[in-house]
């Protein structure tokens, strides 16, 4: 019974195995990026970027229909363009990056919806907005896995400057010029992972599997490495449980994954070791020193 409910779908159906591989790839790469987004107070920037990739994906859709490879390429181009433009404007004018990004993403979103509506139907629009991880083919899975690998490699390269720039940007500027390139590379990774999430969860929820696990991790650790590990596990568990939920109840897969992550988040808010509500209400006896 438990086997049939929790494991059976994956042994029985290839599309479920592909979906599971995809959510694990998304968790491995997206969750660490989400942790940095949160720590750099850029959570909503990630959300804005998710909308910014829409026109590129829409152009891919216009040219090739529901071809995820074309939509991915288009999304990457649009996302990079918005990320780099917003980053360059912010760094060269002193305008805050979120303000700069808000302008670009709103224009981008309007353009994207316009492009989709020129050719598509409501069903197409729903696919673009919410994705469909269960419809993922081998080629798309390879794209997702490739993006995840690139993300981890680039993150390893920029990890140190990214950490120092997050905690003490002035110091980094005095010892190195790596801060600017690291920030731009980080924005590029955000885009890559949003496009990855876009395949599975759609533009509206793509950022969910990055930010929610990061928020969960914040309630369980004060150590960056531990936070990243917790976020990856939380994202993978949400992905797996979301797929099972979707399979068993016919809830759309993307929302199912995000709803499971939300449940984990609520549990963390309540019972988290660091600042959880229950912990604050019942902190235990104070220590001697």
């Amino acid at each position, binding site marked *: 019974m438990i086997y049939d409910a929790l494991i059976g779908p994956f042994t029985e159906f290839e599309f479920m195995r592909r979906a599971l591989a995809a959510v694990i790839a998304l968790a491995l790469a997206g969750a660490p990026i989400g942790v940095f987004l949160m720590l750099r107070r850029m959570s909503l920037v990630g959300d804005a970027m998710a909308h910014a990739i829409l026109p590129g994906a829409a152009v891919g859709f216009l040219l090739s229909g529901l071809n995820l490879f074309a939509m991915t390429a288009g999304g990457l181009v649009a996302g990079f363009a918005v990320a780099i433009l917003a980053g360059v404007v912010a760094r060269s004018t002193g305008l805050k990056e979120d303000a700069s990004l808000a302008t670009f993403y709103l224009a981008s979103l309007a353009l994207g919806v316009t492009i989709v509506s020129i050719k598509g139907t409501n069903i197409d629009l729903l696919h673009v907005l919410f994705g469909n991880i269960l419809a993922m083919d081998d080629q798309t899975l390879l794209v997702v896995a490739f993006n995840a690998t690139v993300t981890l490699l680039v993150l390893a390269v920029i990890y*140190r400057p990214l*950490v*120092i720039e997050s905690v003490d940007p002035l110091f980094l500027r005095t*010892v*190195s010029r790596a801060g600017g390139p690291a920030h731009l590379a980080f924005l590029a990774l955000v885009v890559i992972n949003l496009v990855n999430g876009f395949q599975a969860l759609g533009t509206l929820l793509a950022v969910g599997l990055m930010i929610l696990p990061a928020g969960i991790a914040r309630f369980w650790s004060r150590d960056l490495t531990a936070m990243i590990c917790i976020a990856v596990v939380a994202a993978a568990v949400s992905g797996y449980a979301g797929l099972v939920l979707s399979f068993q109840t016919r809830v759309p897969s993307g929302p199912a994954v995000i709803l499971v992550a939300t449940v984990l988040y609520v549990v963390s808010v309540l019972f988290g070791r660091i600042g959880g509500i229950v912990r604050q209400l019942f902190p235990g006896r104070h220590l001697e020193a």
Partner: protein
Amino acid sequence: MAALHFHNVTLGYDRHPAVHHLNGEVARGALVAVIGPNGAGKSTLLRGIVGILKPLDGSIHLGGLDSRDIAYLPQSAEVDRSFPISVFDFVSTGLWRGAGLFGGIGKAARDKILRAIGAVGLSGFENRPIGTLSGGQMQRVLFARVLLQDASLIVLDEPFNAIDAKTTADLLALVKRWHGEGRTVLAALHDMEMVRNHFTETLVLARGPVAWGPTAEVLTPENLLVAMRMCEAFDDTAAACAADDISSRAA
């Protein structure tokens, strides 16, 4: 030989000068206090020296030093203390010059970090997240990182603000140790007694330089009064500065 040479430097924001037409030299091994009221341009000057802020006019020469030979201690408010990083890891960033992107932190480097943390009196705090430290403890952490940087020019922005007497005395001893080792130290300060008793040279700044020289000669009531009278606000209707006229007058 000079460690720093200011040539008619103007630093500022949105074309408004915060440091206006500064000329002069800082000798190698000097111990210089930069004093002046709030808004006098002290932090701006230090930011210009370490290369964070580009001059609006004029230039700052580092006397043959590489920018990596400079250690900068910012005001602790500049550090995001909510970031989940331990004291050990934070201090270890002082090894950037040697370690860079990929360099490992081996046993020798670990010992060096632990010694720096011990030298500022924070042994036992290595694994503490920086967000749980008091203001004085955080200031000690910043000093430990400067220690690790092993730089020949050390720039300290209000290093003793809002910390207790014991911490101040400990950290001041470190500053004097650096001076004794022949390093050049510049510190933006507010405590006149400290400046009078421990710093050999003083620059009184009030946007423009008021006086610069041996502390005993510079730290006079007249100079301090001139500095106190400085107008903090920028004048949005100000005309473009006739820089050449002012430079030639100064010369």
